[in-house]
Structures are given as structure tokens and as C-alpha cells.
């Protein structure tokens, strides 16, 4: 019995000590009190130096927190009990958040830098007139491949993913709309198709790709590609950029039939307790020099035209990541298909994955 009590006592003592240290640390970093905003973003999706710069310029402390999926982020904001001032949902999530009345309408007079955004990326179907959101980064879905591990295959067409020479080589992303989208694109259907007939046709075709599929995974694919462990992957352009920066043998291509054009967007959730601070932060991030530095750090494509001159030409003239307007013609932005149809997509995708061996 004495052993038990003294053990318990030691644990309480240690926890108390740690709590105290923690308190000291938090005070040292000034996380407590003062004018603060809380930014809720994807992991490693901002240059930390810029956060410091913002804190110095505006005298507002930034608490930076991260999430790993739109759904998780939305759940947190929807349930309340949080006070996020800025967050970065993908386009379909903007629409969902708007429907659930989770967003504050933006007052553009407080964001003068919004004029730097390419008009092509403004006023998109998921948020007409940019009432709630401003694009933060954008990109496409395509094929990343390592030519040194392949026998001269090319990927101008989505059809090439069905080629028998890719047996057990292809890595797919664990996301229903992207994978079924490959099939839809190759059949010439819309990525926003809601026709059960078309979807059935697409997944039937997809099933014949089964023998080529090595794995269906998430972000781990980046490391596998960099380490030459995998040779072909269906992936987002941002991830492809990460791969290319680490491994020169990797290339990225958007097949000619078309692709998805995606956006991550800055929004102010209703839970914000420092709306003025949030506006200052958004305006700061849209400053051309800041946006340029951020884009170079993160490696994704920025919609900020004024930022492009401040960036390395090698990046901004790369057609793979900054496709010209002609190439963009075949791109489609995801629409929110509604939970019902999303369910159909996911069930079909589940069936596809269960058929893999």
C-alpha cells in the first residue's frame, strides 16, 4: 500500500513540476494575453519566418495550429468551443462551410491586397464573387513518374495508366473523387458527374486497372517517390513539386484529357474572436513579396500574379505548375455534389479497394 501511495505522490509531484515549467515557457513565448490571432492551417503550409515578420510588423501574436483533413477541421469549427480566426479549407469545403453558416462574409475594403490575385482564380463556382474566401494556393491532379525506373512509358493520356507494363507499379491517392476522376476523365465525362450510369461505367473501367495498383495511400507517397521506391503515382501538383525538388528523375504531367483544378482558400470562420487581426493577417499574406516568399517555401502554385515577378523564373515559367490559359481549358473545379452523391463515390471507391490484391 505504501508503495502505491508514494508512487502516486511522485507522479503528482512530477506533473506539477512539468505544469510549472510549461507555464513558464508559455509566458516566455508570450502565448498568453496580448493581442493574438489563431491561425488554423494544414501542417507546414506556411513559411514560419513570415509569421514572425507579421508579429513584428503588426504587434499581433500568431498562434499557429494545424489539421490534416478538411473534414476534421470543419468538425472542430462546427462543434464550437474553439476560437480560430483564420483557416484554409479546400474549395468543396468552403462550399460546405458556407452551407452550414460557418463563415464570415469578407469585407474587401479591409483587404486591399486582394487586387493582386489573378482574376482567373476569382469568382469561381464554389464561392461566387468571393463572398467568403480568397484563394491561397492552387494546383492540378496529374501523374508523377520517375523515368529512370520505367521503360520509356509516357503519360500524355490517362489511358496509359492501364498499360500492362505498369503491373504492380502504380500508386494511387486515397481519395475517391481523384481516383474515379481518372476514369471519368479518360471516358470524357465530367469530374462532377452525378449520373449513376457514368459512374458505373467509370468504376467498371477502373476495376480493370486493379492489377497495376501497388498501393492506395496518402501523403506518404512523396517519400516513396523521392526514395525511388515507387515509379508512378497519381498525385496533386503540390506534392509532385515536393517530389521534384528532392529527386531530379521525377517528372509531373497533367494528361491531355483534362484534370481537376483545386484550391485551398483563406477564410474567416464565425468562431473568430479577433476579426480585425484576421483581416490584417490575410492582407499581409496577400502582399506580393510575402506571397512570393511563402510560395517558394511551400512549393505550391500561388494565385497571386503580383508575387510572380519576385519569384525564381525557373518556378514561374514551369508549365507543369503554372499552366497557361490554353492548358487550363480542360480543367474542372470540383463542385459540391452533396453528401448523397459523395456517398456513392466513396462506396464505389471502397468496392474498388476491396477488389485489390
Amino acid at each position, binding site marked *: 500500500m505504501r508503495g502505491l501511495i508514494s508512487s502516486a505522490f511522485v507522479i503528482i509531484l512530477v506533473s506539477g513540476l512539468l505544469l510549472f515549467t510549461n507555464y513558464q515557457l508559455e509566458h516566455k513565448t508570450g502565448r498568453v494575453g496580448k493581442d493574438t490571432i489563431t491561425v488554423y492551417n494544414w501542417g507546414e503550409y506556411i513559411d514560419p519566418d513570415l509569421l514572425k515578420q507579421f508579429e513584428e510588423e503588426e504587434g499581433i501574436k500568431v498562434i499557429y495550429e494545424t489539421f490534416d483533413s478538411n473534414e476534421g477541421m470543419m468538425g472542430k469549427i462546427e462543434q464550437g468551443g474553439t476560437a480560430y480566426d483564420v483557416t484554409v479549407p479546400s474549395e468543396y469545403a468552403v462550399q460546405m462551410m458556407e452551407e452550414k453558416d460557418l463563415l464570415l462574409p469578407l469585407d474587401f475594403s479591409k483587404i486591399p491586397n486582394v487586387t493582386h490575385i489573378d482574376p482567373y482564380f476569382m469568382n469561381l463556382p464554389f464561392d461566387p464573387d468571393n463572398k467568403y474566401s480568397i484563394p491561397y494556393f492552387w494546383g492540378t491532379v496529374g501523374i508523377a513518374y520517375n523515368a529512370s525506373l520505367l521503360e520509356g512509358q509516357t503519360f500524355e493520356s490517362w489511358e496509359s495508366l492501364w498499360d500492362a507494363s505498369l503491373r504492380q507499379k502504380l500508386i494511387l491517392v486515397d481519395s475517391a473523387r481523384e481516383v474515379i476522376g481518372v476514369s471519368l476523365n479518360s471516358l470524357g465525362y465530367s469530374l462532377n458527374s452525378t449520373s449513376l450510369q457514368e459512374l458505373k461505367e467509370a468504376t467498371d473501367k477502373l476495376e480493370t486497372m486493379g492489377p497495376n495498383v501497388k*498501393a*492506395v495511400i496518402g501523403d506518404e507517397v512523396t517519400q516513396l517517390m523521392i526514395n*525511388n521506391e515507387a515509379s508512378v503515382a497519381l498525385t496533386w501538383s503540390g506534392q509532385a513539386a515536393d517530389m521534384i525538388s528532392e529527386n531530379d528523375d521525377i517528372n509531373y504531367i497533367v494528361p491531355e484529357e483534362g484534370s481537376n483544378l483545386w484550391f485551398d482558400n483563406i477564410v474567416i470562420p464565425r468562431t473568430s474572436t479577433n476579426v480585425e487581426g484576421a483581416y490584417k493577417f490575410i492582407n499581409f499574406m496577400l502582399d506580393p513579396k510575402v506571397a512570393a516568399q511563402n510560395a517558394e517555401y511551400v512549393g505550391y502554385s500561388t494565385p497571386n500574379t503580383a508575387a510572380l515577378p519576385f519569384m525564381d523564373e525557373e518556378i514561374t515559367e514551369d508549365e507543369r505548375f503554372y499552366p497557361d490559359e490554353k492548358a487550363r481549358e480542360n480543367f474542372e473545379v470540383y463542385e459540391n455534389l452533396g453528401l448523397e452523391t459523395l456517398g456513392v463515390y466513396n462506396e464505389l471507391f*471502397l468496392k474498388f*479497394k476491396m477488389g485489390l490484391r
Partner: protein
Amino acid sequence: MRSKNPLRFIYATPYAAWLLLFVLAPIAVIVYYSFFDLSGHLTLANYRNFFTSIYFKLTLSSFWYAFLITFFALLISYPTAYFLTKTKHKQLWLLLIIIPSWINLLLKTYAFIGLMGIYGPINGFLEAVGIGNQQILFTDFSFVFVSVYIFIPFMILPIFNSLDKINPTLLDASKDLGANAWVTFKRVIWPMTTDGVKSGIQVVFIPALSLFMVTRLIAGNKVMTLGTAIEQQFLVTQNWGMGSTIAVFLIIFMFLIMILTSGKKGGIIK
């Protein structure tokens, strides 16, 4: 019996409160949700849906892998626990078995991706001994291996505890009576450790049904479990009704397993 209870009823309130708030209330919520479809209408469609081929197949494969994982975990853990009880500093060794599980699981999984990779040390070894390069990652083998790895400490602990309490004189007696090692094991050791084995099976088999993350990272989604399906329904499809329905079945399966693994004598945890 009550007279012997040194614990007056009132002391049990924290536990009872926990049962009510964190077990019964969530179950009620889940059962409630399972009767609603996406548009919020009362329906039995989710249950009908569960019995369609796809979820039925999923359940079967889930059980099969959970069985494999439990089987191999037991196969490895039992001798480990047995030998551990024979070591000099057995408590220390036991702690050393638990410590690896304090390092973040995702990190260890990433390490396994590296270890099992085409250029990883395991393949380096296979190459050196002449077996040649193998695709280890994204196979049934890698999935079962890593899952067993995760669960081993949870299996060893209860078995160790039950082995540890066996009185050594009992074994001597058995030997003196002319029993060989195998007979001693079968007649003396094993019966005395079945409780430990049963709680080991419970803490491995049941969570193995709901494994996720490992299914994606190590098996490349070529293995699906009920846990993965629930995860998807809640987070991706946002169909809480269907997710809850699968969860309800998982809870039913758990009850069945508990009944199956409960022995006749005593009728408690065993």
C-alpha cells in the same frame, strides 16, 4: 457476499459515473444516429445496407485478419512471457517490452516503411543471403507483421502476470511425479494461464477488428477493416448514420467475443 465487500457502494460512484457518461451515453448516441440517413430521416436503410455484399465481405476479411494477428501475437508472446518469467531481472525486462510502445505509433510506422522498403535494411539482408529483393511493403505479410508488432506488449503483459504467479513448487511436484516438460506444460502451466491468455486475446482481437492507419500506411489499403470503413464514413463521406451502424455491429461482435472467451468457471473475464 456483500458483507465481505470492504468497499461501500458510494466508493464505486466514480466508476459508475464513468460507465454512464463515457460508455452508455456514447452508445446511446451511436445507436440513435444509426437510424438516420443523410437527410435526417428516420430509416432502417443503414442496416439494410450493412447486409449488402460489400460490408459483409468487409466484415469477413476484417475477422480473418484479426484472427491472424491474434494468432501470431499469441504464438510469439506466450514463449516470450514464459522466458521472461525465468530471467533474473524479470520486472525490468517486462518494462523494456512496454517502452517501445511509448514512441509515437505513426513514427514507428514510418520507420517500418523505411525498414521494409526496396532499399531498406531488410531487403539489403535478403539480398546478401541470396534470396534477392522482395516487395515487402503493401502485402498481407507486412500488414500482419506490423499489427502483431503493435499488439505484442498488450498480449505479453497479461500472460506474464498469470505465468508469474505460478508457484514453482508446483512445477517441481509435477516433475517429481514423473511428468515430462510437455505434460507439465499441458496439464499444469497452460490451464493456470488460460485467464491471462484470454484477456490477452480480448485486448488484441477486438482492437484488431478496428485497426486503421496501418491498413493504409503498411498495407496500401489492400487490406480493409471495419475500423477503416467507420473512419471513412465519419470523416470522408460524413455519413454518420452508416458509420454508426457499422459501429453498432462492431459492438455486437465484441459482446459475442466476450461471451465466447468467457470460461465456464467463475464466468467473469476469462
